[in-house]
């Protein structure tokens, strides 16, 4: 029974992570603030179009963190407490985003509109890359020690710590993590451009975005192929569910796909949808490109995250000693807690329904200058 709930919750957390990557289109859109927008009018349109949605991305990030904490607290404890500087950097990059939308256009904002725009750009560029790097550690692990019984040592009760002074920044230097980080950035920027095409009422801006999406989208597809090749040739670590012994397995993630099959099908459908969405831009049929590509990204990311832990895979491997590694079995909450939280997930369709309803209400009309200047408008 516990086995089922551990897998169920990893699937839920992974789905939240996958939806988060899709919603990072807000961050991708923010990277257009420097270089792509040509004037203040476009800048204001872009910020207001993204301003309807930034909260949703932020909430998904917070919920993703909360769900990991609740379902796999040992991961939360080991990764956040160990890879301290990596998580701190991500945190700061998101904190500066949260205030920037509301403060940017307000009189007396102290730092000036450009500073807040720069904050948004930093969040869009480096927030996405670092989130990708952090997710990369699900496949590449980290230099940590973890021993639950350390709690019985009165003079030194800390159960986990990072063994090098970089405290997580070393993850950026790992080529796979960096590749994944860049992949997330390119996905976010591609989706950001598609959102601009769909949602901003400016032909000139949309045409420019279409041109850019051809370049960024192609780079994203190439990058994603690179990620898949790198991932499928990685050596992963398998855990024996009977005794908890962790041991290396060559091409582990490739075998996870072939042995489980359904993540491979999900991945395939995801890739087809991404390609369909991007090709539709080349064919100038852009009406649903954002949603098609977005759905593809969700499915592709979800299948990769499933692969990180399903099929008896250690999802956070210790470089110090593989036996310190975290698996679904040694890091999850208790059966009772997972079960209790599962009842709450019954409400998720209801939550999704009102999100979709509210999203549609606010997205049915493109963002345009006239609407923004109406007396009733809340303008960022």
């Amino acid at each position, binding site marked *: 029974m516990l086995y089922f709930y551990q897998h169920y919750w990893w699937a839920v957390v992974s789905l939240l992570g996958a939806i988060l990557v899709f919603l990072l289109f807000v961050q991708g859109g923010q990277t257009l603030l420097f270089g792509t927008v040509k004037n203040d009018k476009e800048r204001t349109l872009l910020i207001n179009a993204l301003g309807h949605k930034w909260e949703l991305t*932020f909430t998904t*990030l917070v919920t993703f963190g*909360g769900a990991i904490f609740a379902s796999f607290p040992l991961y939360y404890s080991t990764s956040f407490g160990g890879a301290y500087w990596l998580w701190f950097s991500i945190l700061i990059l998101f904190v500066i985003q949260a205030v920037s939308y509301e403060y940017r256009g*307000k009189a007396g904002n102290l730092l000036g509109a450009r500073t807040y725009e720069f904050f948004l750009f930093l969040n869009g560029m480096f927030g996405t890359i670092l989130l990708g790097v952090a997710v990369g550690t699900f496949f590449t692990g980290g230099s940590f020690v973890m021993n639950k019984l350390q*709690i019985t040592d009165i003079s030194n009760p800390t159960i986990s710590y990072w063994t090098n002074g970089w405290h997580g920044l070393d993850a950026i230097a790992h080529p796979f993590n960096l590749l994944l980080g860049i992949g997330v950035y390119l996905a976010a920027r591609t989706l950001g451009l598609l959102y601009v095409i769909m949602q901003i009422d400016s032909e000139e801006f949309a045409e420019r975005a279409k041109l850019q999406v051809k370049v960024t989208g192609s780079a994203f597809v190439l990058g994603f192929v690179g990620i898949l090749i790198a991932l499928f040739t990685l050596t992963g670590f398998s855990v024996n569910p009977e005794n908890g012994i962790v041991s290396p397995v060559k091409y582990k993630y490739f075998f996870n796909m072939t042995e489980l099959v359904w993540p491979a099908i999900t991945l395939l459908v995801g890739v087809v949808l991404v390609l369909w969405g991007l090709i539709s831009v080349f064919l100038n049929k852009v009406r649903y490109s954002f949603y098609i590509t977005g759905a593809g990204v969700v499915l592709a990311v979800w299948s990769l995250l499933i692969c990180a832990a399903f099929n008896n895979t250690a999802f956070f491997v210790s470089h110090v000693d593989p036996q310190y590694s975290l698996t679904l079995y040694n890091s999850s*909450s208790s059966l009772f807690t997972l079960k209790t939280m599962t009842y709450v997930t019954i409400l998720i369709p209801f939550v999704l329904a009102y999100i979709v309803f509210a999203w549609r209400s*606010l997205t049915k009309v493109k963002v345009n200058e006239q609407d923004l200047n*109406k007396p009733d408008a*809340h303008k960022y």
Partner: protein
Amino acid sequence: MLLSSLIDLSRLQFALTAMFHWIFVPLTLGLGFIIAFMETAYYRSGNEFWKRTAKFWMKIFAINFAIGVATGIILEFEFGTNWSNYSWFVGDIFGAPLAIEGILAFFMESTFFAVMFFGWNKVSKGFHLASTWLVAIGANLSALWILVANAWMQYPTGMEFNPDTARNEMVDFWAVIFSPVAINKFIHTVTNAYTLSAIVVIGISAWYLLKKREEEFARKSMKIAAVFGLISSLVLAWTGDGSAYQVAQKQPMKLAAIEGLYQGKNGTPLVAFGVLNPSKDIADMKADSAKYYSEEPYLFHVSVPQGLSLLANREFDSFVPGIEDIIKGGYTYTNFKGEKRTALPLEERIIRGKLAKEGLAMYHKAKTAGDEEGMEIAKKQLTDNFEHFGYGYIKSPEEIVPNVPLTFYAFRIMVGLGIFFIFFFILTMYLEKKNLIAQKKWFHYLAIISIPLVYICSQAGWIVAEVGRQPWTIQDLLPVQAAVSGVSASSVLTTTIIFFVLFTILLAAELKIMFKQIKKGPDAN
């Protein structure tokens, strides 16, 4: 030494973030409802005045909301980055409310926040009104879940320690959710937030009256806020009393620190106000007992006879233990199950805490060796001593005593100002009813000064609750030294400085934006 500076810095950082977070959150908790009342008036009457009024307060709401969100995520991260041992030890219980908060409350709040601000021309009047109410409800639901988690830390219930996983595990979700401490804490905290919001609305409105601007807007805003504030502050006082009673039963050391009470007695008086004697130090009890016993706890005090006994136990002549009594043990008390028990001396609790830890270590040794009998014996040793688990990390008596001056003065500031606000709301209603409110300049000044006072009051409340429970992250089970992450003190110092600089800049920007918005008034677009 290194560990103690790491602990102090980690505590400082968490306190800094939590206090900063609590500057912005209470206003959104209460203002959400005040705005909803105003928009309901607009929906019913169609009077554009109410729409304009609601929209002005929405602007103030939005400015606070953004920074509240920003600081909220920092707190969530800090559980993991700075308190990683804690995250594992209690994640099974603490994480669940946090995740439910995300799924149920945050999404409600953020989704309808967007509709509330951007939906005026895009959705129907009814849907917009529903969104405004849902933002207020979502914000308060968020508060519910996080306060459930906080209450559990003060009064751990509904869980069992699992020796196999070496952590606490939830066994009764409803016991966690409906713990009396959680219910009281939630009501006390949100009514505090409503009181704060009401004061802010009255204070800003008073500024308009002082400047002879926006009289109708100001007076109607004040009227709603005063009624909302009076009801809230009365509930606040009632739950405050409930909170003191719970602290007496479940966290006696916190109560002793709040009172600066070193030696308890039957019929203990309640210090209404007073000045602590800085020379009275519990560390002297062992080191220099002559000095310790010669020092009076207060330089000056005015007390209500038998007041503390009544507050703590609902009996005039009951015994309330002081700091010294709790360290020495030996007094009789009734636990929350209604059982009469004799308090153990600290020294014994330390020994039993160590025995619990030894039991846990032995259990795992026996498990590895496949020794089932050994496992049973070790498990019994652990279970029998588990309620003292956290004391195994304690080395000296002063470690279990919170900062007495901070809790003592914070408590009096909180209660004193709380009482003042009840009279303030009554005064506001009286002056409004008598049509005098627009002319009384002294009242306008009083209302404006009340804004910083209500923030001080609210922060003081959290100081009492959180400083008062030191050193426990989980009462009696996990002290701060066993909860902290294995990071370097210099890393925590650096991030604390970064946060401090960032918070200062953001606060300055926030205040400047707020002042500009207020100056522009409700007609500004």
